[in-house]
């Protein structure tokens, strides 16, 4: 993708401003503070200070906050900090540094007339530099200073035969469209001036040229942008990230082009944030691809053999990768912890009396936060032990007593994979990435449940908490509908089912705190010793393009349940597979039994939403979860006793 950017012509702009400042008579006297306007709105600052020809604004000034809100920007500052940073609507960070005249915005450094300074708990920042970085040009009009919103940048991106043009404004953009001649149309932006080059040759298959013409008074400017297109070119408006941007897409006849028809008049806000064009991915610097997987491994066998008269060899077979750490205790005991591993065989606790090994114990030492298998040895006397990791496990060589026991601990890594391993690049070449996700598909036994026939269902949200609302769907209603269907399906198969809520209600109390509400849901399952906990949700996002089904787990004991349910959901629903993912979600963390949180589909995606409107689909969701539960129970037997 080629990419070029016509920035305002900063040098030109700066020169023009300085010329303006120089030519205009000193606009203010120290005792008569200038009025400051944003277009036709007067801005009232509480405690501005004059600094030469410029104005210093306090970070805590409500007038500054109002200005920033109007232009879609936000200021981050902490008393005592040396940085005060304004984030523009198009997500450029405009950085002011206390004591430093340099102002950085989106990689471009300019010099402010004075260095930002602190007074009390405020930092004072230069208005002119701030305004310019936010595409507002200060214009002196009589005794007043008018900040004139600009079309500050025009971005042209060519992808295949499609050309995307994004106009960046200093304020939310509104426009009306006109055709100036065949193959040429124009958008006029009211209330916006321009500091753009007048003509931009594009030379793309569907867009030849862009002309920019601005006029009007300082407070009431307008700018017309004309697009010259070859005959038959298609043009649409596609959605942008903020109301201050308008993105148009151009393509030759025959090329598929997604977007909306450009209306005769409209606001950029109507096309903002809900959708981002897929062709605009990845405009940033790449770095090496890296995978982060929680190390996940299974201990598949333990083999203790004699190695001569007074020595022994213990081989721990491990599939997957894990970290290990061993310790020698003072009283002839020795153990190794395999972190990131689950026990795929029965726990062992025996007295083999082979080669100096009096006792051998193998158990799942911990499941949370990191599943850990501990192998403990009781030795007949202090022994030197060699620990050798290999791709398929760990060999522990207990030497004869002639050798001196020296090291007290050690650690290392088992398996071919590593916790942080190079991954194949995803999508475009040189894409940089950290990826998450479970790797293991092997299952330990399930923990013991006091009430092995009970499943607790948690319809997400409810009562005062509606959850997300999109496309005529309310999350709390969808989740309850699915849960009721699932209850019927599970009851028919012989399960006892308890719901955290059976109506549209808060589980703890109306308008309660998030903790009380979520803990109350966990308590229901924990108190009754349920075998499983299934929380049902529907997803949402600002971009309507995202869709699909995700099943979340947190504890190691959740993973098998999540995987079985997810496979059934994906097999039967026809939704996009967004995977089984580990996430520290409250309700799956604070439940003491295997628990999952299912994001069935995206309310915010039109086609997913259509599915969620369909009772037949909701029934399929319920049946798939019930099938997943059944397969889980068959495949992952419950431990018969914890002390085994």
């Amino acid at each position, binding site marked *: 993708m080629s990419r070029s950017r016509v920035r305002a012509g900063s040098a030109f702009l700066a020169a023009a401003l300085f010329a303006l400042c120089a030519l205009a008579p000193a606009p203010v006297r120290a005792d008569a503070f200038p009025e400051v306007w944003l277009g036709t709105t007067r801005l009232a600052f509480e405690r501005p200070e004059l600094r030469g020809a410029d104005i210093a604004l306090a970070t805590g000034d409500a007038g500054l906050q109002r200005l920033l809100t109007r232009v879609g920007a936000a200021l981050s500052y902490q008393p005592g900090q040396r*940085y005060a940073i304004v984030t523009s609507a198009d997500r450029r960070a405009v950085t002011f540094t206390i004591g430093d005249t340099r102002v950085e915005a989106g990689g471009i450094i300019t010099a402010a007339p004075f260095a930002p300074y602190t007074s009390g708990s405020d930092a004072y920042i230069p208005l002119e530099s701030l305004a310019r970085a936010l595409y507002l040009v200060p214009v002196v009009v009589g005794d007043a200073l008018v900040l004139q919103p600009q079309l500050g940048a025009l971005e042209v991106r060519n992808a295949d035969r499609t050309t995307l043009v994004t106009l960046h404004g200093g304020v939310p953009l509104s426009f009306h469209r006109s055709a100036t001649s065949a193959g040429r149309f124009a958008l006029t932006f009211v209330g916006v001036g321009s500091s753009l080059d007048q003509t931009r040759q594009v030379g793309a298959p569907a867009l030849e040229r862009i002309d920019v013409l601005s006029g009007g008074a300082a407070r009431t400017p307008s700018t017309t942008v004309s697009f010259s297109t070859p005959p038959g070119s298609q043009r649409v408006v596609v959605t942008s990230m903020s109301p201050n941007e308008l993105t148009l897409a151009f393509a030759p006849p025959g090329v598929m082009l997604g977007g909306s028809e450009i209306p005769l008049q409209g606001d950029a806000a109507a096309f903002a944030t809900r959708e981002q064009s897929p062709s605009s991915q990845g405009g940033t610097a790449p770095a090496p691809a890296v995978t982060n997987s929680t190390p996940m491994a299974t201990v598949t066998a333990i083999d203790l053999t004699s190695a001569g008269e007074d020595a022994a060899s213990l081989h721990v077979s491990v599939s997957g990768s894990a970290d290990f750490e061993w310790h020698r205790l003072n009283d002839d005991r020795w153990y190794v912890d395999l972190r990131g591993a689950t026990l795929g065989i029965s726990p062992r606790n025996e007295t083999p009396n082979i080669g100096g090994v009096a006792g051998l114990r193998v158990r799942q030492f911990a499941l949370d936060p990191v599943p850990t298998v501990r192998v403990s040895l009781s030795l007949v006397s202090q022994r030197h032990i060699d620990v050798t990791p290999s791709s398929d496990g760990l060999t522990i060589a207990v030497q004869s007593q002639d050798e001196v026991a020296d090291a007290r601990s050690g650690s290392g890594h088992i398996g071919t994979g590593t916790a942080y391993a190079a991954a194949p690049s995803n999508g475009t070449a040189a894409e940089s990435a950290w990826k998450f996700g479970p790797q293991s598909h092997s299952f330990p036994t399930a923990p013991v449940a006091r009430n092995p026939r009970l499943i607790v269902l948690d319809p997400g949200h409810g009562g005062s908490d509606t959850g997300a609302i999109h496309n005529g769907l309310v999350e709390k209603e969808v989740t309850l509908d699915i849960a009721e269907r699932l209850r019927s399906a599970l009851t028919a198969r012989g399960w006892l089912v308890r719901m955290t809520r059976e109506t549209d209600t808060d589980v703890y109390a109306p308008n309660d705190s998030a903790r009380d509400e979520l803990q109350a849901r966990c308590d229901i399952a924990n108190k009754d010793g349920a075998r499983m906990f299934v929380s049902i949700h529907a997803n949402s996002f600002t971009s309507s393009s995202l869709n699909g089904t995700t099943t979340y787990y947190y504890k190691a004991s959740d993973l098998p349940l999540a995987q079985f349910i997810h496979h059934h959901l994906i097999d039967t629903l026809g939704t996009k597979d967004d995977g089984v993912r580990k996430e520290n979600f409250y*309700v799956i963390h604070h439940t003491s039994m295997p628990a999952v949180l299912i994001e069935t589909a995206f309310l915010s995606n039109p086609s997913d939403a259509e599915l969620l409107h369909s009772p037949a689909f909701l029934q399929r969701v319920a049946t798939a979860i019930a099938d997943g539960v059944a397969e889980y129970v068959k495949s992952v037997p419950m431990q018969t006793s914890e002390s085994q």
Partner: protein
Amino acid sequence: MRALRAIVILALLIFAVFVGYRLAKRASGPTVGSTIQVYYCKLDGQTLVPWTVTLGSARDPKSVAFYAAVQAVAGPPSGTDAIRFPAGTVVRAVNVSDSTATVDLSQAVASSGGGSFAESGEFKALVWTLTALPDIHAVQIRIEGRTVPTLPGGHLELDEPLTRSSW
């Protein structure tokens, strides 16, 4: 006599170099260079992508942590598809102690309308960014100065510090 003078000049030179080195070292701060890596999360909800931003002249750990947090919350410039914190989200404060950065965000962070997907991507990017800095291993989130169990109507547990291994 000439030898003595040479020795004195040499000693002065060594002293000057030493003082200059100490001053330069103090000015540049301990371990942070002129750039830092800021992460954003792609729309797949899983892939974290780093980009490089240039620091201003303040390089002390507290300033750098604040700078990094604001950059991560701002996200990459528009035109890049990323899971983003809601517009208007402000970093109110960043304090670092005992290798934990406490990041206080404004209420606007809760305005995205309840999606576990966005929450996860946003906070993952913030945590990855801050823990890429020297001596920061965990991030405690606060909202308007208070520790919260989750975002209102949210899912991701925020009352304990988040680390890279939280995911």
